[in-house]
């Protein structure tokens, strides 16, 4: 149920924000981030039933692979690496899993994949603050707000990776589309967990 619910809220938030994400990407990239993410989420949704029957770590890893195979842009390998690493690490650690630690390793794998660092105006600028909030055991609502504020802060950054980097200083003033989709997904996941797994 958890997997099916998370897949649906992620799909829904990306579907609602497809145009917004494309508009952000048109400003500093190739304009397809929203449609790419929607395509990936729809492919994951289509596999929802079989994914729900898998153990949680396997389901997460498989979702990552489906994103890699369907998103189409650099976001596919980046989100795909994040989820595949989370799945693999959870499987390795089984019940002893320390989720913040698992997430940190997965985020580091995304950074290596994209050869990017914090401050480069990418989804990492949301992922690292989300990890920090999670590690402090912040309430879910605070984690979501941190994600949103962190995405907004990418507007002040100069893009160092991806197509936006070709714009140099002209990328400043625009929110990064990858950071924005990452904040949207984080918010949707936090809201769902808040409603379905009261802490």
């Amino acid at each position, binding site marked *: 149920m958890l997997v099916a619910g998370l897949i649906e809220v992620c799909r829904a938030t990306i579907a609602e924000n497809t145009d917004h994400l494309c508009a952000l990407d048109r400003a500093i990239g*190739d304009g*397809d981030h929203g449609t790419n993410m929607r*395509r990936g989420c729809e492919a994951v949704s289509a596999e929802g039933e079989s994914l729900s029957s898998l153990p949680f770590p396997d389901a997460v890893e498989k979702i990552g692979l489906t994103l*890699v195979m369907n998103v*189409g842009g650099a976001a*596919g*390998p980046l989100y795909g690496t994040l989820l595949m690493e989370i799945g693999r690490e959870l499987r390795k650690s089984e019940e002893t899993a320390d989720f913040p630690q698992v997430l940190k390793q997965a985020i580091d794998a995304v950074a290596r994949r*994209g050869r990017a660092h914090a401050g480069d105006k990418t989804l990492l600028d949301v992922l690292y603050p989300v990890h920090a909030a999670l590690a402090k055991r912040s309430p879910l609502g605070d984690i979501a707000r941190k994600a949103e504020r962190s995405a907004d802060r990418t507007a002040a950054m100069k893009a160092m990776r991806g197509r936006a980097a070709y714009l140099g200083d002209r990328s400043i003033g625009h929110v990064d589309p990858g950071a924005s989709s990452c904040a949207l997904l984080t918010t949707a996941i936090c809201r769902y967990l808040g409603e379905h797994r009261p802490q």
Partner: protein
Amino acid sequence: MTAKTANVGIVIVSHSPLVARGIADMVRQMVGDCVPLAWSGGNVHGELGTDAGGILKAIEAAWSDAGVAVFVDLGGAETNSEMAIEMLGLPRSGLVSICNAPLVEGAVIAAAEASGGASLARVVATAEELSP
């Protein structure tokens, strides 16, 4: 598609199917059939974009035990190519290199080098000499 050749294979990856195919045509004109060659262009729907699964198939199609040199255009093409190479798994993933070289000139020069039986390292180095 699995040409039995000792020559290094060449794979072209572009966001545009037209670009990828056009460069493959230019390479073919230069070296004929003596170099294994394949391309992947566009996303899964054939629109502008890249497709890790399609790149994986192209690497398989251009496979050579001497190795495969991959030429990419922009960011997502490189990231998705890295993903495709990982999906090949060891030991084959160790025989595939992404070249930091201009797409058209790099692929043509690499193919010319490969057609003479050069090693993967030599093919990649020759193409990368084009990059400043």
